[in-house]
């Protein structure tokens, strides 16, 4: 994943700070990774490399660890985050087909983020409303009975809302604020 402008500096500063706050031992690896992820929203490769150097652990082992545990994400959260439930109930009624439809529409795989960082796609296990299966959480909003046709609808809505109206609105608001100040 390509870093955006200024991100490199942000990552380096964040890792430096977290490493400064923890003793740099192997036992502290997971807390260190958690803290960095909390600040950056994900664990970029650069952060993993710097942590590896700091804690004197091979970088490939950090990668092994962060791909082992589900709690770590290696891709930045997208502007729109879609989480497809693959809990038992959702799986039974075709949650995997729903996930595939999203993968096709977004042209990314589960766990990935689109190169423009517009979308990220993840799987989750039971979000607690199995009667609505198959369930999808779109930007923290729960959507029920998401068949592949509904996937098209959701994607259309996201495409429209992100495109200009939404962005422009917040953009003008900010401009307005700036003007007032």
């Amino acid at each position: 994943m390509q870093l955006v402008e200024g991100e490199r500096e942000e990552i380096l500063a964040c890792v430096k700070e977290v490493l400064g706050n923890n003793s740099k031992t192997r036992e502290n690896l997971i807390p260190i990774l958690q803290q960095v992820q909390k600040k950056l929203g994900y664990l970029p490769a650069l952060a993993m490399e710097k942590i590896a150097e700091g804690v004197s652990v091979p970088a490939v082992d950090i990668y092994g660890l962060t791909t082992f545990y589900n709690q770590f994400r290696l891709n930045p959260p997208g502007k729109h985050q879609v989480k497809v439930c693959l809990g038992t109930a959702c799986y039974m009624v075709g949650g995997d087909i729903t996930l595939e439809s999203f993968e096709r529409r977004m042209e990314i795989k589960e766990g990935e983020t689109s190169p423009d960082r517009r979308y990220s796609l993840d799987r989750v296990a039971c979000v607690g409303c199995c009667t609505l299966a198959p369930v999808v959480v779109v930007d923290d909003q729960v959507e029920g009975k998401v068949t592949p046709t509904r996937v098209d609808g959701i994607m259309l809505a996201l495409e429209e809302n992100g495109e200009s109206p939404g962005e422009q609105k917040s953009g003008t608001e900010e401009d307005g604020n700036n003007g007032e100040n």
Partner: protein
Amino acid sequence: MSEHITVNIDDQEIKARPGDKLLWAALENNIYIPHLCAIKEEKRPNSSCRLCFVEIEGVSRPVTACSRQVQEGMVVKTRSPQVDRLVKTAFELLLSDHNLNCRECPANRNCALQKIAKERGIKLKHNRLKPFNRTFELDDSPDEFALDRSRCVLCGQCVWADRVGAEAWIFGFAKRGIDRVLTTFNNLPLAELSCNECTLCVDACPVGALYYKKD
């Protein structure tokens, strides 16, 4: 140390050094026990391939020979219905996600899986377990060799060679369960890492996953 221990394996008395692991004591005396993941120098073996089961008299269940130290007077059987069943299942599990195509494989006739199959009379075929195909990108970025993960049995021999032999720290394992995979940092192609192509890992691979390119 000159001190020796006597162990009985398959009605054969053999001598071993105290602290030796049963697997290596047997192999050194030409008694075959299937194995993929064992590394002689490793103090605490991974025991992950589950192929080296044996029966020890007085121990109720089969144990992995690569992790068990020899003991004076130990009586061992390398075969029993229970052992055979465990080994067969472990072997079939390994094959179930293996890109089984020996004729086109660089390791054909020089492959640990073929040897185990022959020794134990297990067919090198997908039958009881449904094949599970995983697709991987071939990494042929090094000049001399290539890595085809579809034939990797996750034995860890290359990781050991890379770390202890070459001290390059290129290889490791990522993900878990059925997705477990031999990896490099961030899954980068080997040529983009500090691999100097010493090829110790290629020589360590018991199957056709790491292999020399033909020129």
